[in-house]
């Protein structure tokens, strides 16, 4: 798993990149009450705003961490946005991207580097 400075995680599963936010980010956001996901088929460029999260406190944007096409989104979040708090790195994932260049992942932190980054 890789981590961005924006507190997103990326995991490669079956050639797709799964994206969500870290435990640390979900704690900082507070209880998530609404997640607006991109449409399937959306072409994204790294740093495009693709997801909006509304917590009890405020709205936050989630950026695409990598270029590619959104091929799957976590529809369950529409009715149960609290999964982002309950299981941010599992059931609380946001979307899957078919990446144009998996090499873009190399610039991101590994778990150890991320733990240092947030401490």
């Amino acid at each position: 798993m890789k981590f961005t400075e924006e507190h997103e995680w990326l995991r490669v599963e079956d050639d797709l990149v799964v994206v969500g936010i870290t435990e640390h980010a979900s704690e900082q956001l507070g209880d998530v009450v609404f997640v607006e996901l991109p449409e399937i088929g959306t072409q994204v460029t790294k740093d495009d705003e693709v997801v909006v999260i509304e917590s009890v406190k405020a709205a936050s944007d989630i950026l695409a961490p990598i270029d590619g096409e959104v091929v799957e989104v976590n529809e369950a979040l529409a009715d149960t946005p609290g999964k982002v708090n309950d299981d941010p790195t599992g059931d609380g994932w946001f979307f899957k991207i078919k990446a144009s260049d998996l090499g873009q992942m190399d610039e991101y932190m590994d778990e150890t580097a991320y733990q240092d980054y947030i401490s």
Partner: protein
Amino acid sequence: MADLLTTPLNALHRELGAKMVPFAGYDMPVQYPAGVMKEHLHCRAKAGLFDVSHMGQVILRAPGGYAQTATEMEALVPVDLIGLGEMRQRYGFFTNDEGGILDDLMLANRGDHMFVVVNAACKVGDIAHMRAGLPGCEVEEITDRALLALQGPAAEAVLEGMVPGVAATRFMDVGIFASEFGELWISRSGYTGEDGYEISVTEAETEALARALLAHDDVEPIGLGARDSLRLEAGLCLYGHDIDETTSPVEASLIWAIQKARRAGGAREGGFPGAERILDEMVNGAARARVGLRPEGRAPMREGTPLFAAAEGGEPVGQVTSGAYGPTIEAPMSMGYLPKPLATEGTVIYGEVRGKRMPVKVAKLPFTPANFKR
């Protein structure tokens, strides 16, 4: 930035793991480790303890006793204070000459004097306003007492166990109680829509009282985050957001707080700043009204969201003044102002969120029923 003021519970908030934020010049807890959602639900289910020590506590005294303070204060607020019973409290607001609202406040008849509680952000201005407007009164700001609120269905049983006699009071009663925490000034009121108490306690005893309350299984500390979602579900206004110097009490749907004696045809009709506009609007209606709003989707419509009459085109017809997710109603909720013709329950309008117009229905306030002990 100037140094933040602290309340007597600052160290306790930190010990409890609160996230602290600046609020009205004070360093205040926005949430504890449980988080806004759980704190909110706990308060509605059992009891929550709030530190509201940043609010201003003021005593008004006059040679002519309470009657004189009431007579003079009636020149600043459109509230029947002369008719307020001994050891009873009323909600009210200072109005300006244009009929807007300078601040909202609580006013209590404490026998030989009046006790007033005002908002933190307005207290300096309010005290100056009272000193200028109440020539025969001594206006004393109480600076050696803190203010706690204990709110929720379990509040009565919890506080009665520590301060016998409080269970016998009813909504908007005030009392002075001797206790092991010194003299407590207790009113049966709050700002959550739940039954509960607001407790004024000496600075020296504040932490001991808070710890004793928190030691009860039913009591959890509640931060400003849940305080805001609780008051919004209860349909209550936040000064500086839902009401301000530009909103009249009639527009703000607060005419219930103007008693008959101060209305047109009443025993002491008018006689407060802006009376001409306010009394006229009470008879002829105001151009706009504060309403409850229920977005049809799950996305909250927050403060500042522009409101439109149609899904496309046209200029904004109003805007959201408070908006959040309601943990008890499990849905987003807002309040805002709309032109009178649109301000009827069930009307669908549109709020623009991130460039998209989303349907939102005008709804009844409060969003959750009040649980006061009348």
